[in-house]
């Protein structure tokens, strides 16, 4: 499943992953894939632009470290990012609850109407 189906979902996922500690792009994709039980497979063409956008928005900071003989760029959640994450999580939950409410009520209505 492509998380781009839901607007703002990729940024929400990135912020959430990085709220647990600094990480880099490939690790973020693997973490999302793992935690979503293979449902969310972030494409690199979407991940890195999202990371860079959050960095320019001061929600993330980046730093480089040497790893396995290469330069690796780590991203770290800032206070602004943390605040934005909280707000987005709240909004997402309300959205999901509403959506679930609607989706959950739909079969009964249909059954009632056909009875």
């Amino acid at each position: 499943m492509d998380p781009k189906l839901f607007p703002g979902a990729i940024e929400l996922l990135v912020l959430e992953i990085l709220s647990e500690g600094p990480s880099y792009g490939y690790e973020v994709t693997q973490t999302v894939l793992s935690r979503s039980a293979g449902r969310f497979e972030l494409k690199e063409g979407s991940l890195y632009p999202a990371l860079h956008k959050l960095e320019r928005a001061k929600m993330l900071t980046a730093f480089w470290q040497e790893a396995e003989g290469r330069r690796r760029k780590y991203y770290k959640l800032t206070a602004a990012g943390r605040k934005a994450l909280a707000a987005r999580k709240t909004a997402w939950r309300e959205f999901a609850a509403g959506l679930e409410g609607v989706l959950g009520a739909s079969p009964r209505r249909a059954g009632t109407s056909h009875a």
Partner: protein
Amino acid sequence: MLNASETSWPEVVAHAAVAHLPPVRDDEPTTLRRDILDELTDHLACAFRRELLKTKGERERAEHNVRQRFGDPAKVARRLWLDAMKGRLMTQKVLIGTCAALVVASFAFYTLMWQAIASSQERNALLAAQSQAANAQMLAEAQNTNAALLARLEDIGKASAFNDPQWNPVTLRLTSSDGSAPFRSDVIKVVRVAEREQGGKSWEFWPTAEGVVDCGLMQPGKYTIYLETTWGEGCYRSLTVMPGRSIELTISCPTAPPKSIPIDWNIDWPENLASYENYESSWLLVSVGGRLVREFGEDTWTDQDGGRILAFHPDGRMLNLSTVELPADVADLVARSSSIRSFLQDRRGSPPIVEANEIWAGGRYSIGEMAYAEWNKSQGTLSLLQDTSKPAIDFGNDDPGGITGGKLANLLTVTLPEPSFVAPKSEQATWTIKMPSGLIEWAKLRHERQSQAGFGSIDQSALYPLFSRDADAATERGRMPIEAPRPRG
């Protein structure tokens, strides 16, 4: 552990992706391309290593899987570069747009300025020309105004020299009526300025050789200017003197007398008078008056010929009694003695030879009176047929020119109404005078009765026209009856 060949593929792919980025820009961060390259290389290397593990070392399959999941690294690299450069690119675009706008605005501004300058130059040239013309006009007007002011000041100065606005300088400038001939002061007999009111004063002046008549200072009022030439031609002009204003009048004057032409007078004597005994003593007296008007510009000059008395004899002789005036009213008769004397003296001796008269060419002439007279040779008197209803004029001891008897009897005259006739301008004229029928009838009575015992009046309307050209009409009108003579009281 991965060997060198395993790790080279991601680097090659990342380098290839970064190689497709736009050319390096001056405002580009120095580490941007390197950071993109390293981040993509690290990601590809991690993914490639994981796929190698999954595929148990199948390199091509691992590369294939990585490529399939990653997509086009060049697109990702370009997207990252564009996101990083977005602000600068936008700034550059805005800057370029602004510069372009400024260039366009500058071009438009300079175009407008150029047009404005060109237009301004044209307007300036036009304004300069207009200003020059206006200045020239103002200068001319100022000069005219100054000249008028100077003339006015000069006039005022002249007037104020006597410190009395009630005395105003009057100057007449006499000019030649003929543009090709100069003014001739010698032909001006007199210039007379007279107050118009009855009994007013008059003054006489004479022009300078240049035609200037300085009348001096005159009081306000109305005057009449009269000029007369040596040959009797005169001109009247009105003059009004205003307080405090000088006057200068220009008058055109003739430079030569009017041209005259000879005139032959011819009397159409009635044949039936010739049979009378004293017919040879008969004379027909005719007063002829003439008037000539010549216009010179605004000035009218008039020949003041008051008339001439011509005495005609049946044998064709003619005597000019031009100095004898026979006005219509006998009571006003004034005999000019010298002429009468001359006439009588001539008659006592040999008959005088009298040249034909002359008349002004173009003059308008008419016959004023006619009288029938008898010459008494023995008494030396000329008896003019009388109308006893009029009082006689007693000359007393003042011999009026040799007329004996002391009285010039009350003459019977007839005043002829118009027509007058205009003399030709260049040729000799012959005018034939036809005796009025009434006068003929009266003359016959005179000859038959040899009496002066009263005469009837003559219908004057029957006495014209007199000239040969109207002979037929005159013949018809000549049959007008007259009253019978009355016995003398």
